[in-house]
C-alpha cells in the first residue's frame, strides 16, 4: 500500500485541496470568505462517462442518479460540465436555461450559475452549470468556489458530471468514482485512463456497464473483465472495482425524449434502467 492514502470525503479536506491554489483565473468573481464549516460533510462523487459517441447517455445517468438520491430524502447538488452538450436541464424537464437561475445574494459569479430544482415530495436538487462556453476555459479555482456555496455545502451528496473531458480540478480525492462504459474498446481505454488518474486518491470505483436492453451484455462484461484484470495488474494494490449492469431500456429512452426523469415516470418499477440506477444510488448512499 505504501503511499496510498485513505480516500477523503470530508468537506474541509475537499476545501483544503481546492482553495490553496494560487493560479490566477482572470475572473472578477469574489472569493467567498471562509465560513464556518458544516458539521456534516457532503459526499462528493464524479460521474465519469466513457461512452462516445452518445452524448445524451452520459447526462441521462447523472441526472437520474441525482433524482434517485433526492427520492431517498437526500439533498443533492449536480455540478454539470456538459457545456454545449449538456442535456441535464432538458432531462430534468426544464425548458429555459435562465428562467429559474438563482444567484446567491452578495456573490458575483461570472463563471457559473445555480438553479434550484424541486420535484413534488423529493428533496431539493441544486444544479450548477458553467455560465460561459467551454472554449473560454472554466477558471481553475471555480470548482472550489462552487463547493463553498452555502447551498452546495449543506447538501448531502454532490455529483460532478463531466462528460466533455478532464475534470476541472483533478487533484481532489473522492470516496468513490462512478465510471460508465460500454462494449467499445475506446470506452475501456478511457475508463482505464480515468481509474489510473484517480487511483492515487480514490480506491473504489463503481463501473456502470452500459448496454442496450435486448443486446447481449456479455460483450460489455467481457470488456469490464479485461479492464479489471489490467487495473489489478498495473495499478496500485487495494483498488475495488464494483460492476453494476446498466441496461438502457425503452423506458429510459422515453424518459430521454420526454424530459421527465425516469424515477418520476408512472411505471419506474417496470424499468430495468431505473432499477439499475436505484442500485447504484443505494451503493453510493450506503457508502459500501
Amino acid at each position, binding site marked *: 500500500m505504501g503511499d496510498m492514502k485513505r480516500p477523503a470525503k470530508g468537506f474541509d479536506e475537499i476545501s483544503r485541496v481546492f482553495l490553496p491554489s494560487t493560479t490566477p483565473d482572470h475572473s472578477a468573481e469574489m472569493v467567498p470568505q471562509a465560513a464556518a464549516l458544516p458539521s456534516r460533510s457532503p459526499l462528493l462523487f464524479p460521474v465519469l462517462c466513457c461512452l462516445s*459517441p452518445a*452524448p445524451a447517455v452520459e447526462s441521462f445517468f447523472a441526472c437520474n442518479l441525482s433524482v434517485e438520491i433526492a427520492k431517498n430524502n437526500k439533498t443533492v447538488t449536480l455540478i454539470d460540465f456538459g457545456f454545449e452538450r449538456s442535456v441535464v436541464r432538458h432531462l430534468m424537464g426544464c425548458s429555459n*436555461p435562465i428562467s429559474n437561475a438563482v444567484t446567491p445574494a452578495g456573490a458575483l459569479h461570472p463563471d457559473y450559475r445555480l438553479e434550484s430544482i424541486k420535484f413534488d415530495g423529493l428533496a431539493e436538487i441544486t444544479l450548477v452549470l458553467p455560465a460561459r*462556453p467551454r472554449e473560454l476555459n472554466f477558471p481553475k479555482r471555480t470548482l472550489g468556489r462552487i463547493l463553498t456555496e452555502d447551498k452546495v455545502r449543506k447538501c448531502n451528496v454532490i455529483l460532478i458530471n463531466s462528460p*466533455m473531458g478532464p475534470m476541472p480540478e483533478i487533484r481532489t480525492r473522492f470516496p468513490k468514482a462512478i465510471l460508465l462504459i460500454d462494449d*467499445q*474498446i*475506446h470506452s475501456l481505454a478511457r475508463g482505464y485512463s480515468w481509474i489510473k488518474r484517480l487511483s492515487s486518491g480514490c480506491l473504489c470505483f463503481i463501473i456502470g456497464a452500459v448496454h442496450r436492453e435486448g443486446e447481449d451484455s456479455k460483450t460489455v462484461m467481457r470488456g469490464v473483465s479485461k479492464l479489471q484484470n489490467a487495473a489489478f495488474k498495473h495499478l496500485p494494490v487495494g483498488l475495488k472495482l464494483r460492476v453494476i449492469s446498466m441496461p438502457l431500456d425503452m423506458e429510459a429512452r422515453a424518459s430521454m425524449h420526454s424530459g421527465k426523469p425516469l424515477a418520476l415516470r408512472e411505471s419506474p418499477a417496470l424499468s430495468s434502467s431505473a432499477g439499475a440506477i436505484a442500485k447504484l444510488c443505494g451503493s453510493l448512499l450506503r457508502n459500501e
Partner: protein
Amino acid sequence: MSRLLTPASIVDPRELVELVSGAISEIVSGGFLIDFALGNEEYGYFDLVAANENREGVLFFLNSSGDEVEYLRFLKCMCWYQENWRTVQKLHAGRVALGPIPTVFVVAPRYSNSMRKVLLNVGGSRITLLKYNCFQDSNGKKSLSIEKVEDSSAVGGKTGFMYVSTTCPSRPAADWPNMPMAEKIKYLREFCREMEADISNVSDEELLDLLG
C-alpha cells in the same frame, strides 16, 4: 463481431451529401428530402433541399472539409437565393413553401469561434450550424454523429444538441480482427484524440492488456 467505431474522414463531398440526405428525418423533425443541388453554376449550390413537418423549406449547405473559404460560396448561395426565391418557390410549388429568408442548416466538421459568430449572424436565427464527426465500423459502414452548435455567447445558448446516426456503403475499412496489435494501439490512440479523450497516461503495455 466487433462493434468498434473508428474515426473516419470524408474526402469526397458526395459522401457527406449521401450520409446527410439519409438522415434528414432525424435532423429535421418529421422532415423529408425534396431535391439535391439548388442554385446555379455561377453562384454555387445548396446541397440539399428538404421540408420540415409543416412542409416549410429547409436548405442544407454542406462543407465536408470545414475550410472557411467554402463560406464565400455559402454567402453567394444566400445572395442567389434571395434574388431568386420567388422563381424557386414556383419551381417547388405544392411540394414545399419557401420564403425570402430561408431556413438553412450548415453542416461542417468544425467551426472557429469567429466563423461561428459570423455564420449565425448571416441570417439571424434561421441558420443552424451542425458539426459532424464521422465514424466507421469494422464493415466500413460510415455513420455521423451530429451536434447542434449554438452561439455560446448568447444567454442560455448552450443546451441544444442532436445526435443522429446514419449509415451508407463505404470504402473498405481496415480489417480490425486481423490488424497487428501495434496498429490497433495506434488506431485507438488516434480515435481517442479525435474524441478529445486523453489516454496519454495509459502505456502501450496496458493497452495491450485491454485489447488482448
